[in-house]
């Protein structure tokens, strides 16, 4: 088994595959160290779901790295995968070994994601230094030991943006505002409270940046309120002086290699299509973690990668059995996407399939409903759903009939309550 990427997804997939009987596993990692982005996430909040306790990013990574160190899994760092094809042949470049060519019997894609840039959201103006992604700023601050700026504006209230607002503040920077184009924060609620509210950092909802100025170093940004169609409202513009603009405007799964294999990408997730084993449309090729869809909790990355790792082991050990009918899982009301998109194997000892989904808009007092031919299969009540927080619901194996071909997932107001949507 070849795993591409030694972040939380790649490591968890490899460990789980070994646990399930694979003994020839190699992880290829392009960076100098393993753990992916976790080593620079020195804040806490990791592990509540997976370990039942709150850890920092490095601590969370260490829990897995410990196991990795006592395993027989081979890890090659500073190894950049240059190409991979549908025959599972990989070409990589390693500093010491030079070009490496390997063929896997199974491959797990765990390349993670990258941050959206200024160009992805089209901010016009000058091109000075001082405009960088929140994640890059996090690396400078937490790993390299340097501050990218002193007067900071943050565009986007994604989790990294919120975390970095607090981080920059703790380092003595003046964080002037966090701007969010949507009418709600796109990060976790706890991050909004702990990172902005506790530090009196203003969050300006329905605001965006329409221009940046500064010939050499950033001098100021023009901020405007937006209408419902996200267009700047005339007369609301104001300039905010700052030397740094951090962008936390979304993450894009890094699927260049996936595309090179000939796999199609899902228009919403930006990841490839997978069945319940996180298997792609190429048999024996799996994808897990942020390369598949962007997660807000690493705990779920680990969980998802374990599904893939175990399936890869079962696949090579011929333990899997295809269903007669493939079941499609499709998004219904207020669901933007689901992972997986299909169920293709028999359940065997599995009690349920956990379906991950995101909502389009915030709603309160809802139920997550699985529907087959307009009939409810099962539903779960939820107090609140938000676009920034992934929703999960279990589809029980016992309720799946052999003739089902498509199950829809909807998030609906609870019956009898007509003011659920806020």
């Amino acid at each position, binding site marked *: 088994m070849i795993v591409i990427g030694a972040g939380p997804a790649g490591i968890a997939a490899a460990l789980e595959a070994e646990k399930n009987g694979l003994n020839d596993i190699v992880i290829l990692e392009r960076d100098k160290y393993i753990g992916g982005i976790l080593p620079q996430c020195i804040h806490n909040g990791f592990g509540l779901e997976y370990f039942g306790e709150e850890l920092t990013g490095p601590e969370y990574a260490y829990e897995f790295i410990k196991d990795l160190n006592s395993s027989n899994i081979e890890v090659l760092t500073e190894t950049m995968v240059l190409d991979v094809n549908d025959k599972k042949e990989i070409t990589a470049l390693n500093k010491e070994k030079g070009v490496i060519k390997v063929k896997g019997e199974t491959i797990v894609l765990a390349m993670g994601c990258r941050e959206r840039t200024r160009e992805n959201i*089209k901010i016009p103006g000058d091109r000075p230094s001082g405009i*960088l992604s929140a994640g*890059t700023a996090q*690396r*400078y601050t937490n790993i390299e030991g340097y501050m990218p700026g002193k007067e900071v504006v943050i565009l986007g209230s994604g989790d990294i943006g919120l975390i970095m607002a607090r981080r920059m503040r703790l380092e003595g920077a003046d964080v002037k505002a966090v701007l969010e184009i949507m009418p709600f924060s796109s990060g976790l609620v706890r991050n909004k409270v702990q990172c902005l509210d*506790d530090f009196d950092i203003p969050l300006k909802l329905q605001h965006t940046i329409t221009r940046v100025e500064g010939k*050499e170093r950033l001098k100021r940004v023009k901020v405007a309120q937006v209408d419902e169609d996200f267009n700047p409202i005339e007369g609301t513009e104001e300039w905010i002086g700052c030397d740094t603009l951090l962008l936390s405007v979304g993450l894009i799964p890094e699927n260049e290699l996936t595309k090179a294999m000939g796999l199609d990408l899902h228009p919403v997730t930006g990841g490839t299509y997978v069945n319940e084993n996180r298997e792609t449309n190429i048999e024996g090729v799996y994808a897990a973690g942020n390369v598949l869809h962007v997660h807000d909790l690493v705990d779920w990355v680990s969980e998802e990668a374990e599904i893939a790792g175990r399936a890869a082991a079962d696949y090579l050990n011929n333990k899997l059995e295809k269903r007669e009918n493939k079941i499609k899982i499709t998004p219904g009301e207020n669901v933007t996407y689901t992972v997986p998109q299909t169920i293709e194997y028999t359940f065997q000892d599995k009690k349920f399939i956990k379906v991950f989904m995101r909502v389009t808009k915030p709603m309160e007092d809802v139920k997550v409903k699985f529907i087959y031919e307009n009939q409810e299969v099962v539903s779960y009540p939820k107090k609140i759903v938000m676009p920034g927080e992934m929703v999960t619901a279990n589809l029980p194996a016992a309720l799946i009939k052999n003739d089902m071909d498509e199950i829809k997932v909807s998030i609906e107001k609870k019956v009898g309550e007509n003011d659920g949507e806020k």
Partner: protein
Amino acid sequence: MQIIIIGAGVIGSAIARELSRYDVDILLIEKEPDVADGTSKANSGIIHAGYNADAETLKGRMNVKSNPAYDKLCKDLKVPFKRNGSLVVGFTEEDLKELKKKKANGEENGIEGLEIIGQTELFEKEPNINRDAKYALYAPTAGIISPYELTIGYADNAVRNGAEVLLDTKVTDLIIDNDQIKGVYTDRGEYKADLVINAAGLFSDKIAAMAGDQFEIHPRKGEYHLFDKVHGDIINHTLFPMPTETSKGILVLPTVHGNLLIGPNANRIDDKDDVSTTSEGLEEVFEGAHHLIPSIPEKGVITSFSGLRASLASEDFHIDFSRQTKGLINLIGIQSPGLSSAPGIANKVIEMVQQFSQTNNHAFHQTDDFQETNPEYPHYHHYEENDKVEKWQEVVEQDKNYGEIICRCEHVSRGEIIDAINRPVPARTVDAIKRRTRASSGRCQAGFCGPRILEILSKHLKIDPLEVTKRGKDSRILKARSKEIILEDDNKVGDH
């Protein structure tokens, strides 16, 4: 003979390189921290066939003369260049008439291979073109080039042959004695010269004014969008719409590196340092490009930028000796097709220098040790797909630094970045590294490799990381060491 060239854009650098064939002292002075840092870095990167301008204009003559020189030149300087051909696309019978006129004009200029093609052939050449397009003028000799790599290649070659380049040095005045040039004053001191060549681009009117020559450059700004390489194969040729009075219109073209480029619009502005983009402009570029290729995606833009054209009211090049001061050659109004004309312009200047040397009794002989070619620096992305990996293995075996990929998006190794720092015209900024290696020019725009490039620059230039800049002067990447700001003002955090 001592010669100072002001401005290390493509024209100044080309002149420096051609002059370095001769036994003269050459000093190329540039106010920016790198060569190619003005107009030469932000343009369409086209080597025009030359059918646009009249044979009566200087720019028309220079373009036609220069186009054939590019194959050998780029081979010598190790600059990526491709003759991909261009198509001027017509939609109406009126347009067809115009295209025929252009063709006749081009043929009069001596351009070979021009052809008017109909819809069938046009759709074959460009399957994604607007279905309403009916005709096109096909020019097989048109090409695409990396304009900044050409400039760097020229400047490197000049230095290799003895020229000196002074970066980050601004000419503040000319030293004139008795209407005769004696040298230049700069913000770093005085430099003596027998002859000064004004190739200051947008600022060439200001330099000319120091000698008493009256010119006025009207900057014209053009905005562009550069797309991810995955969109690079949406077209094959350089596509032009029907041109207007002042501009060739908004083009759609592949870059020589395989990206898709659209632009420019054309707006007169006053500020010669204003290379900002505007939301209206960026929208206009999209609209113009969609007219030719309707399927151009709104997403997939890696970077948007703008460049300024140094246009004169005459809309032609002015290349002549100063009328007021002896020993000054002015090159003014070198806008499009300036890049396409660079070799011809440099040759014309050499003739003028020859003339100057004769009237002033200066020696001007070719040297016998001129090195015409630049060495090939290993670049992973330069190799052909089929044996790229095998070739690179050999490179890595020579030096392990080539085995460490720093820029993930463009696959640029540490070795390539170190080379860029050690080239004859050394890279000293993050942008300079980008122009020489493509590191950070990809889809993540330095998100991942920024900190690594900074570390390499700091290490090899032996400067503090805090001193590393994006493009010189105050464009530092980092502002302070960790905890430094708290120490400066410990009230800021303590009040919670």
